[in-house]
């Protein structure tokens, strides 16, 4: 029996039944005897509950519970509970994309006319300038299709799922708990 083993046993919580050898060492070694006494006193003291919640804690919680109807909806999109496709469908960006797509399908002729007019008024000069810049031989890309408002609108709509996916990825990445990872280490 040596002091190092004895201290390791103390640090591990004194879980193993104490034999005569341990008692003898604690009796013969003043340092370990004091450490054993301290460990026992510490064990007893640590078992005592010592913290009380503030006096109005219950009432405050219940007030928040009563106000939590909206939060109940948000709880449905907590990451660990639902399959990914349900969570994805519940994302605001998805709902917005679907609403936009439904609107386009519903009022397509009207929106097409509006898009064409808006494009003529706003985008055409910008695209023309852009294409003029690209007109040099080394950038001989044919982007004339972009001047078609239908193509332009289609590309914007096609980009929405990517924007949604990127937003979701950033959202989950930023929500990871750094403290938890540090604690695991």
């Amino acid at each position, binding site marked *: 029996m040596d002091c190092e083993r004895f*201290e*390791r046993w*103390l*640090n*591990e*919580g004194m879980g193993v039944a104490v034999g005569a050898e341990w008692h003898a060492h604690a009796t013969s070694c003043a340092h370990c005897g*004091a*450490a054993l006494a*301290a*460990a026992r*006193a*510490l064990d007893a*003291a*640590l*078992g*005592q*509950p*010592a*913290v*009380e*919640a*503030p006096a109005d*804690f*219950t009432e*405050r*919680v*219940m007030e*928040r*519970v*009563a106000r*939590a109807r909206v*939060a*109940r909806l948000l*709880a449905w999109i*907590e990451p660990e*509970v639902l399959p990914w496709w349900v969570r994805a469908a519940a994302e605001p960006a998805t709902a917005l994309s679907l609403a936009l797509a439904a609107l386009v399908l519903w009022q397509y002729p009207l929106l097409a006319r509006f898009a064409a007019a808006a494009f003529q008024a706003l985008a055409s000069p910008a695209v023309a300038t852009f294409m003029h810049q690209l007109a040099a031989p080394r950038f001989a890309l044919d982007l004339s299709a972009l001047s078609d408002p239908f193509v332009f609108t289609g590309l914007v709509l096609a980009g929405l799922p990517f924007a949604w996916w990127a937003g979701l990825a950033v959202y989950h990445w930023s929500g990871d*708990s*750094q*403290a*938890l990872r*540090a*604690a*695991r280490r």
Partner: protein
Amino acid sequence: MDPVRPDAQEALIRSLVERARGGDQAAFRELVVLHQDRAYGLALRITRSSADAEEVAQDAFVRAWLALARFRGESSFATWLHRIVARRALDRLSELKARRGREVEVEEAESLPDPLLAAPRAAPGDFAAATRGRRLERLVMRLPAAQRMAVTLYYYEDRSVEQAAAILEMPENTVKTHLARARAALRAAWQKEGL
């Protein structure tokens, strides 16, 4: 809370959980009363701030209320609740660290004002035990976060190493290591302070 036999207490909690799952706020209120001290204590020992601990514990109870429909009873209600508290407290700690750029140092913990450490619930007249409990709380608060959480769950929340590991989402051996280091540090401080 009146002293109740452990099995009767468990049955009462199961019954309250069932009623609360059905939307009974009065039943949930009883659950809050039964668990608030431990939930608050866990949050306090992780965050080391009474204001943050109160916010974290309250938020955890609200989240528990909202998620009760998904509580399947695979663990006890207390274990499930404490997991939520621990996660919220760790997130809060992470936010504070990000804001301050570094963890609260030991010296800061030593200078925590007394109100941040709740008064020990000692029997009237047991002044020595109350003082000792208060000083021990202070020693626990000075431990690194992982050791503090392991000690809190194992000693103050009566969790097994396995349960503490589940709550903290750590391997059991890691929890054992944190506990061993905490015991060594606390014992050294205990002897040094002559408690």
